[in-house]
């Protein structure tokens, strides 16, 4: 047995530290050897050549590098070393992931934000996109609704398009359409490329920003097993007070009296409180749970990580009718085959299933019904006399037959019956896999070739039973529909990269090629009259009406071909320069314009490295600037906008010789093709700075950007006499300008007590700068009975609210009579006291659509996030707060068009007589003045909110205790999500996202975010 030359142990404040790399070096002998500390922190060098002047350098991610020098090694004797590593407070050595490579943060001159494992693991979000919410400046994430499994809305630096504004997601180099399939526990880090210079390397798909997701890789060392899990309960954080049955009856009487009609309810108090539909609808303590097991290990040559996770969430509305389950299995492995060759593979399989209920919908939305259905109707009807009159198809629930309103014969239905009949069920199998080989050709010159596939099978099953909820919501024959999609994408990529330092000059270059093809095939069918009532048996085979069977099937595909390159240069880490270019071709664009080129340049100056710079307090100061162009090829549903398609399904009912009707399938031309269609291009300039001061205790970064998107894709208004749907054309521009600030603080107050905080604030101003339609505007989503409310118009923010301005309520007849135009004619001839005084904004003497204007902006001015973490001995506490300010919302949860609909209690603040200071107009069944059916600023509310997104208290077992049970890193925690929300908004939730930029900010009963309490544990074996 040989005596080791050197033996030692590495520790940090908490105990032994594994994985630290140790370099033994003897410069005079030109000797170097590397060792790594094992799980007990122990490292050894077996046989070092005897000599003097040895030094040992200890380095580890997140710790300051230490060098011990002046050691002499003698044959046969052992040098013992004990080292305590200090956590590094500077972020300069951190690495960021950029397109097709990585870069040291100190050399980065573009706007890239990163979210690390620490934060992701701490949040334990159900979906990985949520980890981006409030965590970095310039990224806005909003839950579209609180329904489990629902995709949140993400906007990077504002909304730059009227088409799909989602960023491009690239997972381990493979572009994917969404990242919902990922298990958040598998994620190592997320890097967000915000400015054009960083994202231009993604060319035609980078215009809305790029989110680079890197999954965890195996760790060298002995095999370890890690378990993470939590169980939580979710509840609604608020409900919207509505009139109880007595108040409701009184209000209806008032409405009748104001319309000079007889009252309907002689004794309102006889109804008592009536039914509280929201109490009935909200699910109490809906469970959410996650379990993850991962195994990792490796040697110098190979390492792997494999993990399994299970996530399950039930909704706070709808119980198991609103549910999301996800199972993931992942394997990531790397192998050094030869000194010059490395290969690796990532394999991810995800199975998810979800069920959902209708949300944020005026017609049929569960929460909308819960607000608007009269409180006199019972949840379950128990009166045998009434039940005798019920139709056979009345919906039966757990505890009886659901009540059917005798007051509202159409419109809102019993929301519980609505949940009962909801049977939409989706399943997705997704296999995403990629493999690479990396060749070290020469010093600093590498070639990497990778191939990946994304195979998704998506299936949907829907069963509509026979039901009767009211005269307008019913179904006489049950129906079963099933559909299947196969979505297959492959990508091949070849990248040559070079990096070398010559003295003070460092060069880097990347040259690459990429090709991608996607093919989607689908097939579906349906049949009527299911033989059973069991939703679990709702298969087409069990539907009796064979003659009603329908099938459909089709396919679409697309391809991208790209070439890209980038060069970096820096001099002494002081002057940094970078330039990139990508040439992209897409099958989705006109045959006359298949290719486009996207350039970018960026530069930086690290002032703190200049010899004249001697401000001690500042460790690092960098100024940077960038410019670039990007494209957007995500242009909606028509993937062949250049082709003149013939559309079937345009048939007619003819009769045959025996007189029987039959459908003859006919055809007509589809949208007009446009072979000249080209990319939507966004051009962005960014100026920024990064500072670190007081030994890295504080860090600060600031960015100012101007992002102009031009050639927006529109269906322009063409004269209807053309007779066919307008083609997509390029015509329109949007500008986003903004400022992003990030402030970090990190310090050890005592050796036991550490604190860190990160604050980010973003300001963005959006403006539509051109639309090439006649009206220079595009109408967005409509609202019950009033037409378009969201609107896109030159000079205005995208999706702004369009309606009437008001100036209070008429207090008396004299005021009505005095409200006249220049000719002395009454502006609102049908008004009576208590009605709204709408403004004749254009002064043309009449109140009409020309007086509509901006009454609100659904885009926030400021978004912010604050994350504070503190560790005291074994305890850790973190508070994560997000805020959004300056955005407006339309509170549209009340069905004013249904005269006897119930209403939010806030409407009690209605005009009741002269001198009333009420916010809302009088309530009347006969609204001649159009108080309700003119969208006006009365219904616009401030949407500002501050939300305690996550508050968490954890305790880590001391390792000596944990080790006794063979565990290490045992941590238990209690977390609360959405613990408090501070807002003046009066609807269900101010956090409302939308997929379409022109249907945003209208609350028609949005599924609110849940308040969740979770208890979790993680342990390593």
């Amino acid at each position, binding site marked *: 047995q040989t005596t080791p030359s050197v033996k030692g142990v590495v520790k940090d404040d908490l105990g032994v530290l594994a994985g630290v790399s140790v370099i033994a070096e003897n410069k005079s002998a030109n000797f170097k050897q590397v060792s790594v500390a094992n799980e007990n922190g122990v490292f050894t060098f077996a046989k070092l050549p005897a000599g003097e002047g040895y030094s040992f350098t200890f380095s580890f991610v997140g710790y300051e590098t230490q060098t011990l020098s002046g050691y002499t090694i003698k044959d046969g004797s052992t040098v013992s070393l004990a080292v305590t590593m200090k956590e590094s407070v500077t972020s300069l050595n951190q690495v960021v992931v950029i397109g097709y490579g990585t870069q040291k943060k100190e050399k980065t001159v573009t706007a890239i934000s990163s979210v690390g494992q620490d934060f992701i693991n701490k949040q334990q979000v159900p979906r990985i996109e949520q980890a981006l919410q409030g965590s970095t400046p310039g990224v806005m994430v909003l839950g579209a609704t609180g329904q489990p499994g629902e995709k949140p809305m993400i906007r990077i630096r504002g909304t730059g398009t009227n088409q799909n504004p989602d960023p491009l997601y690239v997972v381990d180099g493979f572009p994917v359409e969404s990242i919902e399939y990922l298990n958040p526990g598998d994620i190592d880090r997320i890097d967000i490329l915000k400015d054009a210079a960083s994202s231009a390397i993604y060319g035609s798909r980078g215009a809305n920003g790029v989110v680079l997701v890197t999954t965890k890789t195996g760790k060298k060392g002995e095999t370890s097993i890690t378990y993470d899990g939590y169980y939580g309960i979710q509840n609604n954080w608020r409900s919207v007070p509505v009139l109880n049955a007595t108040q409701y009856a009184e209000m209806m009487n008032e409405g009748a009296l104001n319309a*000079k*009609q007889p009252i309907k309810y002689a004794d309102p108090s006889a109804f008592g409180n009536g039914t509280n539909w929201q109490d009935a609808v909200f699910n109490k303590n809906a469970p959410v749970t996650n379990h993850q097991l991962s195994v990792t290990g490796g040697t110098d040559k190979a390492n792997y990580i494999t993990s399994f996770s299970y996530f399950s969430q039930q909704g706070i509305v709808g119980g198991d009718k609103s549910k999301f389950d996800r199972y993931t299995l992942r394997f990531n492995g790397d192998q050094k085959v030869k000194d010059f060759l490395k290969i690796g593979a990532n394999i991810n399989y995800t199975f998810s299933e979800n069920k959902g209920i209708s949300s944020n919908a005026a017609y049929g939305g569960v929460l909308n019904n819960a607000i608007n259905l009269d409180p006199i109707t019972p949840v379950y009807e128990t009166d045998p006399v009434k039940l005798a009159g019920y139709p056979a198809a009345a919906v039966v629930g757990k505890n009886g037959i659901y009540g059917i309103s005798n007051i509202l*014969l159409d*419109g809102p239905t019993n929301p519980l019956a609505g949940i009962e009949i909801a049977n939409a069920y989706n399943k997705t199998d997704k296999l995403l896999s990629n493999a690479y080989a990396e060749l070290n050709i020469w010093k600093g010159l590498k070639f990497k070739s990778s191939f990946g596939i994304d195979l998704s099978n998506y299936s949907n099953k829907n069963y509509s039973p026979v039901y*009767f909820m*009211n*005269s307008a919501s019913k*179904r006489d*024959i*049950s*129906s079963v529909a099933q559909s299947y999609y196969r979505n297959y994408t492959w990508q091949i990529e070849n990248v040559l990269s070079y990096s070398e330092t010559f003295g003070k000059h460092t060069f880097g270059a990347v040259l690459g090629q990429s*090709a991608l*093809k996607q*093919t989607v095939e689908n097939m579906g069918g349906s049949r*009527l009259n299911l033989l059973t009532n069991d939703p679990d048996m709702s298969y087409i085979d069990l539907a009796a009406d064979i003659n009603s069977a329908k099938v459909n*099937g*089709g396919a679409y*595909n697309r*391809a991208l071909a790209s070439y890209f390159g980038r060069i970096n240069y820096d001099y002494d880490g002081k002057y940094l320069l970078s330039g990139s270019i990508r040439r992209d071709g*897409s*099958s989705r664009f006109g045959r006359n314009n*298949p290719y486009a080129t996207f350039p970018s340049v960026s530069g930086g100056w690290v002032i703190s490295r200049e010899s004249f710079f001697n401000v001690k307090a500042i460790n690092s100061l960098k100024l940077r600037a960038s410019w670039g162009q990007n494209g957007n090829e995500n242009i909606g549903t028509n993937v*062949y906008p250049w*082709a*003149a*398609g*013939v559309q*079937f*399904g*345009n*048939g*007619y*009912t*003819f*009769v045959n*010789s025996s007189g029987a009707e039959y*459908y003859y*399938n*006919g*055809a*007509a*031309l589809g949208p007009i093709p446009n072979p000249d269609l080209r990319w939507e291009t966004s051009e962005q300039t960014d100026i920024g700075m990064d500072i670190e001061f007081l030994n890295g205790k504080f860090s600060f970064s600031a960015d100012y950007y101007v992002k102009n998107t031009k050639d927006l894709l529109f269906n322009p*208004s*063409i*004269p*209807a*006499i*053309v*007779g*066919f749907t307008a083609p997509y054309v390029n015509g329109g521009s949007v500008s986003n300008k903004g400022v992003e600030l990030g402030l970090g603080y990190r310090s050890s107050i005592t050796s036991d007590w550490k604190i860190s905080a990160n604050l980010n604030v973003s300001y963005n101003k959006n403006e539509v700068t051109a639309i090439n339609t006649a*009206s220079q505007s595009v109408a967005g989503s409509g609202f019950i*009975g009033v037409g378009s409310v969201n609107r896109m118009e030159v000079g205005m923010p995208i999706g702004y609210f369009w309606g009437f301005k008001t100036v209070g309520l008429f207090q008396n007849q004299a005021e009505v009579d005095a409200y006249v135009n220049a000719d002395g004619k009454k502006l609102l001839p049908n008004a009576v006291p208590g009605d709204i005084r709408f403004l004749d904004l254009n002064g043309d003497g009449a109140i*009409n659509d020309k007086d509509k204007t901006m009454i609100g902006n659904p885009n926030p001015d400021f978004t912010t996030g604050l994350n504070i973490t503190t560790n005291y001995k074994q305890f850790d506490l973190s508070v994560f707060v997000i805020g959004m300010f300056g955005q407006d919302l339309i509170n549209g949860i009340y069905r*004013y*068009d249904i005269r006897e609909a119930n209403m939010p209690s806030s409407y009690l603040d209605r005009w009741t007589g002269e001198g009333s200071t009420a916010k809302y107009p009088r309530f009347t069944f*006969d609204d*001649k003045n*159009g108080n*309700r*059916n003119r969208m006006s600023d009365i219904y616009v509310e401030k949407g500002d909110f501050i939300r305690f997104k996550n508050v968490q208290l954890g305790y880590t077992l001391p390792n000596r205790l944990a080790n006794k049970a063979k565990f290490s890193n045992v941590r238990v925690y209690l977390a609360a999500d959405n613990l408090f929300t501070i807002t003046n908004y009066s609807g269900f939730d101010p956090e409302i996202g939308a997929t379409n930029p022109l249907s945003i900010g209208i609350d028609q009963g949005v599924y609110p975010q849940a308040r969740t309490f979770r208890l979790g544990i993680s342990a390593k074996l």
Partner: protein
Amino acid sequence: CQKSFLELDPPSQIVESNFYRNENEATQALAGVYHVLQWGQWLGFHPSHAWSEAASDDAYSGGGSQSDGVGIKALDQLRTVTLGEQTYRGLWMIYYNGIARANVFLSKIEKVSASEAFKKQAIAEAKFLRAYFYFELARWYENVPLVTVPLSDPSQYNQPQATPEAVFNQIAKDLEEAISGLPRQSLKQTGARATQWAAKALMARVYLFYNGVYNKDMNAGAVVVNKELVRTYLEDVITAGGFVLTPNFADIFRKSNELGLESVWEISFSDTNPASGVDNQRAGQGNFSVHMFAPRGITDPTYTAGWSYSPITESLYAEFEVDDPRRDETVLYGSQFSKITKSWQYTGYFNKKYSTHSEYKATTGISDANWGNNYRAIRYSDVLLMAAELWLNTDQGKANQYLKMVRDRVKLPETPATVETIRHERRVELAGEGIRYWDLLRYGLPYAKQKIDESSLRGAQYDGDQSRFNMNWDVSKRGRLPIPQVEIDISKGVLKQNEGY
């Protein structure tokens, strides 16, 4: 090589260059033109049938509430029309879509490899349909661009309005050319395709409207379409068409009588290829007017609830002679239902001819958008009454005889044919069928105003403030819709707004 990698063709879609090749494909394309006849919904809910009822003195606009279908609300008196109202663009778009499909078809048919007989009839059908669409369009909007070829280049998109004269002459020309190519067969024999009888009767209807409003004859190319010509056409329909009046008036609107012996022209509706909901009515084959007309909030074994549009007026109810059996076959009474929502302009009267009767109900479970009631666009009794009107003072015996035939069926005593007796007979015979409003306009604007204003008359079942029913028709708008403001904007002023707006 890279170029072909990006040049992907749609895998499951036919493109224009690979279509219109043979008889089969031409038949499919022609069915695509017919399909537009069934459209009732685009940018709001407005089948022409429901709209022309609401505009007349036979019905109010109705609907769920004051804010429900605001565009339709304004039809009552043409007084509160909002120019920018998008629903007014809907009909405009529907008919120009039909016209464009017909234009494309007519431009492609010559090159289709098919028999001459096939082409001749196909061309005639497309021209008949184009005439039908233009007639609807010209009646509603009066001053419309005349497009008879596909507009393939954006430089052609912006077309000015043609004179009503030019448009009606084109309609006459299309019909005249259609007549010679269409079969002298019944609708049952042609399988619901256009017939020569349909084209001749439509020519008479077009002539009466044009002559009534503009007091002129039409020129179908070299052929002058005048009273004598359309009389000849109607006589041909009466003597050679083989039509008979359905003995029992109530049976006309029964399903068993679809394409029946009284049907001169009918638009076919069914629940085959059903639409998934009212928001995509166009995808299906259903008659949307039927759902619009039906009483709201009812639960009934025979009738299905609908949206209570175009409720019938007391004025129409009172027009019927007391013992006229047609009254109870025209009016569906709200009082017969145990529960009903008394919605906007509730009169207690609904359209029974086009009702949500169970026999027409879709078997798919989604009945609302898929009512199968065929629209009896031109009935034989209409042909007889048109002929009576045209023979007045020329051959009074024929006029009396045709009027008598119509009254005999419902066992009402003979009355001599006069302008007034024919107007009365048309109103009660054809009530609820989307015809009255156009008759009012051709009788003259003062007459139309007088009649519509008289429909302020309150009935016993009416619900709500009388101000909802007070009619004060704005005669300055000449009974026509505004040119859609959006279209004027797009045209950058090439399109001019109609008089009165």
